[in-house]
């Protein structure tokens, strides 16, 4: 097993060029996601989806632009992987989460399971798709296409531990420079998903970028959920016994 690889996306230096979106599509042969004019901002892909594995958000917040390249978080405790019934989703030797398209039967369970709204089923194709962190490039010793194409090093790729150190230093630097709104998102292994393999430096609250403020992998409540279901199942037995009672002999 290799060491855990990840992305650190420093949105403070993102210039919104969308080179990451284009490089991702080029390398991974991702089909177009519709040529939509959204009329809200320079954002024309809207959100991550089956055919959008990097998504650059544009936010006009009064005194400037916020830009951020969003991506699959490759969670430590990944809900999509937990709930996948076929084993199509798996964890790679780089501790990333990848869909095996030759196994996925398009049940769609991973789609509402993801607390970030990343993975989606591609219409017409019927299977679930998302960022693979360029699994094929990683195996060949290359960095993912988006990180390679990023002209400002907003997208940084590397061993996760190293990235976390680098991110902490960057936040400290920004704070020292008076940008106290800078904060890390998804870097904490104690958060609801055990920390993200792809984490961010944000310049505003997460929800401003369309990110959930406190995501949780719902599988962690699974034992409790099964206990409630067992209680309901037992009550069914009770009702059925009651319904057929008083009729012997």
């Amino acid at each position, binding site marked *: 097993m290799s060491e855990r690889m990840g992305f650190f996306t420093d949105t403070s230096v993102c210039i919104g060029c969308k080179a990451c979106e284009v490089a991702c599509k080029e390398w991974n042969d991702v089909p177009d996601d519709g040529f939509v004019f959204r009329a809200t901002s320079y954002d024309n892909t*809207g959100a991550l989806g089956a055919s959008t594995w990097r998504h650059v958000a544009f936010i006009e917040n009064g005194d400037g632009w916020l830009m951020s390249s969003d991506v699959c978080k490759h969670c430590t405790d990944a809900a999509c992987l937990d*709930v996948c019934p076929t084993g199509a*989703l798996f964890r790679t030797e780089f501790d990333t989460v990848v869909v095996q398209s030759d196994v*996925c*039967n398009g049940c769609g369970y991973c789609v509402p399971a993801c607390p970030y709204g990343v993975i989606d089923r591609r219409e017409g194709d019927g299977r679930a798709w998302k960022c693979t962190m360029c699994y094929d490039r990683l195996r060949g010793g290359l960095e993912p296409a988006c990180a390679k194409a990023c002209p400002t090093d907003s997208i940084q790729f590397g061993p996760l531990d190293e990235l976390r150190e680098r991110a902490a230093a960057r936040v400290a630097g920004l704070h020292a420079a008076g940008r106290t709104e800078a904060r890390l998102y998804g870097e904490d292994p104690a958060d609801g998903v055990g920390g993200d393999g792809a984490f961010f430096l944000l310049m505003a609250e997460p929800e401003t970028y369309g990110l959930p403020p406190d995501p949780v992998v719902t599988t962690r409540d*699974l034992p409790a959920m099964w206990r409630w*279901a067992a209680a309901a199942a037992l009550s069914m037995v009770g*009702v*059925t016994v009651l319904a057929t009672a008083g009729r012997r002999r």
Partner: protein
Amino acid sequence: MARERAMVPKAEFGSYYGQPIIKAPIWHEPHMPLYLYLGGLSGACGLAAAVEELRAGPGGPPATVARLAAAAAAAAGAGFLVAELGRPERFLNMLRVFKPTSPMSVGSWVLAAHGGATALAAGSAVTGLLPAAGRLAALASGLTGPVMSTYTAVLVADTAVPAWHEARRELPFLFAGSALAGAGAVGIVSGLARPETAVPGRRMAALGAAVETVASTVMERRLGTLADPYRQDGMMRAGRLLTAAGGVLAALAGLPAGPRGGSRRGQGIVPAGRGPAGGWPGSAGRASAGGPVRAARAAVAAARSGYAGARTASRPGLRELAGVAAAAALTAGAVCTRFGVLRAGRASAADPAYIVGPQRERLAARRAAEAARTPGDGGRTAGDGGRTAGDGDRPAGGSG
């Protein structure tokens, strides 16, 4: 967005152009809600078949109606399930692995076992072949049935959809009650031709409707703001009304005939005139001890004399009418509830207010607790880092 503010008045947060944060469930109508209904129905019918077999004892006549309904609903439900897949031809991949972390994987295996058992039990009841195996299968469906009816609640609750995940306690009871009511409706309708299923059918219908109504009421109370998607959904409201009306009708249909109706024996929902020779298949069989034919005759005779108050009621047919109306209302109610649950889930996923609001509150509460407990420590509350299984699911070998 005015709509969001109306739902969460206190919340002050931004969003990305009001766009959804999570992806709404992509499951289609009518496939998914009908599968939820049919799976629940099949489970409750399988359970009823098993309980009837137990009461009848070995050698008793099979609970044919329950066995047939359980098998038919399981088969139809499985059909909808396969049709819902993006790649239906790969449906067998569901049985490629067994993953306890995936309610859908667990459910696929339960459906496979339950579908097989109910098919065997029904086949045996229809053909008369392999009665012992058929009985064993019917008994097995008593174990798989309740799981079949309730696992779907875990399935939907184990998602990031707020209206589903936060309702994880009540949804199993909602689905259990709905399944019982649906199965009761089958018993009532089949009771027109086979009177022995009418009484348990009415009781299951009334009790199931009560469970469903209580569960949905408690759920909406406890959910607070997150109950809005349920309250605002027309299907959900229709389901509640139909279920309540059906439950009351089913109970009324079981009342003994009026004051002029002679014997008041069997108060409650047990019809008057139900004696030792009552029309329960197993009991009738054992009472007459003369084989299935005599048992059936005894059952029919008992039904003629006692069932439906025919002996005493001044308006024969009214009770059947009420029963059929109850069955129709309960079936429609059960189906509507499943549509409503899907739609409420979608609505809660589509509105970022339902994601951000509760998560912000959770964060604030946790930070307050941390600050109170260990000032300056920065440690997190226990349980936050709870790992889930699934880590063993690695590519090597493809786990065949």
